[in-house]
């Protein structure tokens, strides 16, 4: 089993850290951490690059704030609730408000080479592995 950090804890940490660590351990036992969260985030990774996708229907590309610090990718955006002047609301299920997710990457990415695009409400971030972080083969010389 891959031991990956993928927590939903608040950025400022504090007293919630312990709880969310426990929560993520329990999630690892009983299901996928963050399952059912908004936005849903999937991560694909090869030796060379990480691909993060998030479901962000209705959010424009320019409204998304992406930052990287060490091995943590942070996504921030807001989604306005739809408004219809003078109309009665019958259902309101679509999540609205400000959203923030910290995503723990399996290795450090080269922040200069990170690219992101959106298509049909899906955000796709490509994070190439930092050169210095790549595994290096050490040759053993014959003594």
């Amino acid at each position: 089993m891959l031991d990956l950090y993928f927590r939903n804890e608040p950025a400022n940490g504090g007293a919630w850290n312990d709880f969310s660590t426990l929560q993520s351990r329990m999630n690892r036992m009983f299901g996928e951490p963050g399952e059912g969260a908004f936005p849903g985030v999937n991560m694909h990774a090869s030796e060379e690059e990480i691909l993060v996708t998030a479901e962000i229907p209705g959010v424009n590309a320019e409204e998304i704030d992406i930052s990287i610090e060490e091995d943590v990718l942070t996504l921030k955006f807001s989604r306005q609730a739809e408004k219809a002047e003078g109309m009665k609301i019958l259902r309101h299920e679509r999540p609205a408000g400000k959203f923030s997710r910290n995503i723990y990457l399996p290795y450090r990415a080269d922040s200069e080479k990170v690219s992101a695009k959106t298509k049909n409400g899906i955000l796709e971030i490509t994070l190439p592995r930092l050169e210095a972080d790549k595994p290096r083969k050490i040759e053993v010389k014959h003594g």
Partner: protein
Amino acid sequence: MLQEAKKDIQTEVERASTKRTYMPAVDIFEDETTVILYADMPGVDEKGVDITLEKNILTIDGKTDFDQSETHPIYKREYGVGDYHRSFQLNDEFDSEKISAVVKNGVLQVFLPRMAPTKKKISVTAG
């Protein structure tokens, strides 16, 4: 703060493919003349949407084919990739000819104009 966004639905008919079907979250507004429906369907474009109105049942279907798992090994999965399906029972009469829909950034917007009240004058002739 986390909100639930995507629900997996059990379809009554067993599907032949392994692709899953999800129930899109919706916002619905109404006034005297129109009903407007918004549905979150990330990964769906205008070609993948199918809307039908039959016997006062409005059905929306969305097809996706967006999945990276074939090219990149999955590392962590929070959301499933699949199709969308949801039906609504409509109480009032709608003009099915005038229903229109738009898809933008993975959000489907459907406009349903209510049927104009038809006044039929029945002339009574003296027998």
